[in-house]
């Protein structure tokens, strides 16, 4: 959905797509989420961070309507279209599928022109005829992202979208995701472990540990004691290892220097040693 009203930071409230109020969820006898409030607005990137078992995926599934809250209410704007990129998708190798066919399997029937457009949006058009079983982690994520974009989503939900992707691929994917927000004005709800991306490109961070420990603008959150208690150490190592590449790789592996690209600088963190 192309955004209709360009919302700026000064505007009071861009239209609310999803609202969770006082949501609690139990899985079996385990309390997974308790008393959770969350609003998602157009043109906003909200990132959920938190330790393992914090209920991040449960939160995502609740927003998607896959899990019903035990308590509290879930409001979803009527006629909202949601694109979903799951944490992992296991496809059995006995199912012969190429990318084009994979993208055409869903509730609606898409024209091949739309499929190509979605793939080129995620810079994966060269994969159209490839078998889905031969894609690398990063390529597969691009295809999944294209699949989500096919529905022209008002809300894009991504559950750890860079899992199994190498470091350069990760920053490319993250850049792609924030480009998508800029171009389409859709809201994005994402679970991420990459604190660097979270701090750089997110409008709002939610630090989750069964309940919302703290939330708000990245700068506010990173100073919050509740955040530091969980991510304090990671933050230090980030500062140590932040480094800068003077070039980036295109999808086909060619090296492009930063000055040749109009895309943002490839500034990312890693646990590897810097090789500048």
């Amino acid at each position, binding site marked *: 959905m192309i955004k209709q009203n360009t919302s700026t930071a000064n505007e009071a409230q861009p239209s609310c797509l999803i609202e969770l109020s006082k949501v609690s969820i139990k899985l079996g006898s385990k309390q997974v989420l308790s008393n959770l409030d969350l609003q998602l607005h157009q043109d906003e990137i909200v990132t959920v961070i938190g330790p393992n078992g914090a209920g991040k995926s449960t939160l995502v599934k609740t927003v998607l309507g896959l899990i019903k809250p035990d308590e509290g209410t879930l409001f979803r704007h009527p006629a909202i279209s949601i694109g979903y990129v*799951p944490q992992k*998708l296991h496809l059995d190798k006995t199912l*012969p599928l190429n990318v084009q*066919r994979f993208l055409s399997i*869903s509730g609606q029937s898409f024209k091949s022109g739309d499929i190509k457009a979605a793939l080129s949006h995620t810079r994966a058009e060269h994969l159209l005829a490839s078998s889905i079983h031969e894609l690398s982690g990063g390529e597969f994520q691009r295809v999944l992202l294209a699949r989500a974009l096919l529905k022209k989503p008002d809300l894009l939900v991504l559950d750890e979208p860079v899992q199994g992707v190498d470091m350069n691929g990760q920053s490319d994917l993250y850049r792609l995701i924030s480009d998508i927000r800029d171009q389409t004005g859709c809201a994005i709800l994402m679970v991420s472990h990459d604190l660097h991306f979270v701090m750089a490109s997110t409008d709002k961070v939610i630090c989750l540990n069964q309940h919302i420990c703290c939330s708000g603008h990245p700068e506010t959150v990173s100073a919050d004691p509740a955040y530091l208690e969980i991510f304090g150490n990671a933050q230090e190592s980030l500062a140590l290892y932040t480094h800068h590449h003077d070039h980036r790789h295109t999808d086909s592996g060619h090296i492009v220097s930063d000055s040749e690209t109009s895309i943002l600088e490839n500034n990312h963190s890693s646990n590897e040693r810097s090789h500048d």
Partner: protein
Amino acid sequence: MIEIILPALIGGLGVALVAGPLGCFLVWRRMAYFGDTLAHSALLGIALGIAFSVNLNLAVVVVCVLMAVGLVFLLQQRQIAGDTLLGILAHSSLSLGLIVVSLMKSRLDLSAFLFGDLLAIGNSDLQAIYIGGAIILTALKLLWQPLLAITVSEELAQVDGIPVAATRMALMVLMALVIAVAMKLVGVLLITALMIIPAATSRRLSSTPEQMAVKASFLGCIAVILGLTLSYSFDTPLGPSIVVCSTLIFIIVYSLPFKSLI
């Protein structure tokens, strides 16, 4: 000779046509053992059908559908692993069926139901196979997209607004129907083989799900023709003959030196 073989041939080709595509779903969804369990419960259906003098095909369909529904619900609990549960139900329903059959006064030719019988195929069986087969293929054509979608990912399908539970149930009912129509020919113990082996063979020759389904039907038909010939020439039991031929085709296709399609 032709009067003996023709009904079995016509019936067998009908069965192979529907078993291929459904077998693909068993393979894709890793449900081979699920199919086995359904098939084993078919014997219970036969026993109950005879005991209450109901149409045998109907009895088998009803028992298989009930079993499928029950399995779907039972498999959702997390106490016992799925394969253990299927193992328990497959063998207990088979055993229960055997006990009910043995208690009946008129002794049945059990081996015909367990392994299939070339000579047992009559006109009414052919009718059942082709009416059932037409229903199954029509339903498959109508439900093909949602069935593929839930096979790729039930979670994504649900987000896309596909009625996942209903589609899954439809697949179970279709499998119950296939088992009912194939039972007379190959017997309850070997039905899943006729579904899975051609589908698995077809995988190496196919690059789309549709190709795989169609080629599985075709490979199944070849296995039926070869199996019938074997059964007639050497007086071997029909079901096992078809299954062995199917396996031979599988071995040949997988040992031929060409690049597998992916």
